[in-house]
């Protein structure tokens, strides 16, 4: 990361000394987000080993136990399964789906954006109209239709979320590449006889890394939310595999009897998504060279 923002003449310096990193470390919200998501991730990774319950263990004598009953810190569900154990296992799935959906949609968006920005003209216009067309569908409609048509597995859900959320990144990359296309260094690279793909991905793309990182961080937040939406509506991750979304799926009918079934997973989703939004905001401020001038 330091290479992108290193100041000419600043000499050799470590990445943690870079202005970008220091600005990011000073961003209070971003730090809060970073701490929240670290704690949440650790809980999901380690938590299941520390709890005395298996997330699939059914105990009908302990049905609907409210939080803090014995060792059930978050209570139990209608089958007497421990909610904390389910929450952490679900977190693994939800966070992984969010992360990989981000990775995939960033790749799709970057490739399409670079191509559209570099070639410009008819190809660029056609690709960008395609982006606009995708943006015309409310993403939840598209997501649900695809999820209902294709057999849902965690892998397919990840792919479907990525397919419906790459457009933002494509737009950002296209704008960045288009603005740099006519610069001298691109001309020089062309005169050296470098191939188009080298110029696109090795010369132009590194200049767009900052905005891509910001957009990718916000895409994780969006992907976690989208997974929660489809799974809540019953077309995402399928039980018995728990996800934060499908844990809420049955919660509405027990709302009067066991409100913690709805509250606990919802808080987890909100915390995770808020964290990534905070971090994205901090990265945006840190990577924006102009913010020092204000």
């Amino acid at each position, binding site marked *: 990361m330091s290479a992108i923002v290193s100041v000419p003449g600043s000499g050799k310096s470590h990445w943690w000394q870079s202005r970008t990193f220091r600005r990011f470390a000073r961003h209070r919200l971003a730090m809060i987000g970073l701490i929240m998501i670290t704690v949440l991730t650790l809980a999901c990774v380690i938590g299941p080993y520390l709890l005395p319950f298996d997330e699939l263990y059914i105990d009908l004598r302990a049905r609907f136990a409210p939080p803090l009953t014995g060792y059930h810190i978050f209570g139990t569900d209608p089958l007497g399964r421990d909610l904390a154990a389910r929450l952490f296992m679900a977190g693994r799935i939800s966070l992984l789906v969010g992360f990989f959906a981000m990775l995939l949609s960033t790749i799709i968006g970057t490739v399409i954006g670079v191509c559209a920005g570099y070639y410009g003209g008819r190809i660029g216009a056609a690709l960008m109209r395609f982006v606009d067309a995708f943006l015309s569908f409310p993403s*939840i409609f598209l997501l649900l239709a*695809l999820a209902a048509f294709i057999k849902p597995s965690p892998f397919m859900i990840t792919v479907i979320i990525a397919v419906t959320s790459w457009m933002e990144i494509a737009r950002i990359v296209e704008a960045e590449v288009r603005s740099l296309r006519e610069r001298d260094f691109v001309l020089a690279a062309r005169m050296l006889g470098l191939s188009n793909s080298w110029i696109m991905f090795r010369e132009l793309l590194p200049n767009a890394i900052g905005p891509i990182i910001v957009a990718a961080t916000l895409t994780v937040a969006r992907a976690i939310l989208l997974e929660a939406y489809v799974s809540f509506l019953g077309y995402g991750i399928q039980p018995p595999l728990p996800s934060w979304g499908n844990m*809420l799926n049955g*919660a509405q009918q027990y709302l009067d009897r066991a409100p913690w079934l*709805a509250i606990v997973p919802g808080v987890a*989703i909100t915390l995770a998504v808020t964290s990534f939004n905070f971090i994205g905001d901090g990265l945006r401020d840190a990577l924006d060279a102009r913010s020092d001038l204000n």
Partner: protein
Amino acid sequence: MLRYLLGRLWQSLILLVLVSMIGFAVLNLAPGGPLSQYALTPGMTQETLDRIAEQMGLNRPLPIQYLDWLWHLLQGDWGRSYRDSQPVLGIITGHLFATLLLMGSSTVLSIAVGTWVGIKGATKRYSIFDYSATVGAMVALSIPTFWFGLVAIYVFSLELKWLPAGNMYTIGNGSISDYAIHLIMPTVVLALVNVAVWSRYMRTATLDVINQDFVRTAKAKGLSERRVLMKHVIGNALLPMITLAGLQLPTILGGALVTETVFTWPGMGRLFLDSLGYNDYPVVMGLLMFSAILVLFGSLIADLLVAFVDPRIRLS
């Protein structure tokens, strides 16, 4: 102006074609394609399936099928529901009112609150109000709409018993006040995200305008802060918001789908989920296309409105 209008119309037309292509592609992704409903019939043989495919023209090349599908679409023949054989377009327009009512009231609420928060944040920049509005907006954007709905139902329907937990009206009542009471919770829940987005953009737009020369001139003339704000700033800051309203349409429509599910609101979103549950693909596809067309139409109207209101475009 005319040139701009024609260009914009042409653009929408191209988008409509692309949208229909994506829609057609999704339709062909359905398991077994459009034939899936017949494949489930007991005693169905491959022979009969092939015959139906031929009758429906499914053995023709895909581009021909696409043009045929598009032709019917343009004529208003959107197919018939698998569930009750009603024409798809009629079913959708039958659910349109409930969704538009919800979206409309929620948009009015979010614009009112968002504009106020945005302007106050911009004029009192870096104040406690501004800071908490910024953080609040980011948290609001992170709360899953349906979960917020569940919590609202728990608090206001189950615990406090102030508001009904769902539906659009009480059976046998249906007066305006009855509708209004049922409308409150879904409206607020759907507005949450949009208030956040709207207030953020409004803050930026107001800051942009405040730093312009004509605002300084107005202040130099000795106008009061309030007058400058009312007469010179707000109008200009609201201009880019019209475009934003157009851009936000897919989000609002998607949010309406989720909100309708939680509050058993009888709109397009509920219809969409019910149809998914019954594998009623024609209705699902119809809704997908209808929502995209609604969005295209909405952003076209927003752009035309901007062109009409903004003298920089109108007089060019």
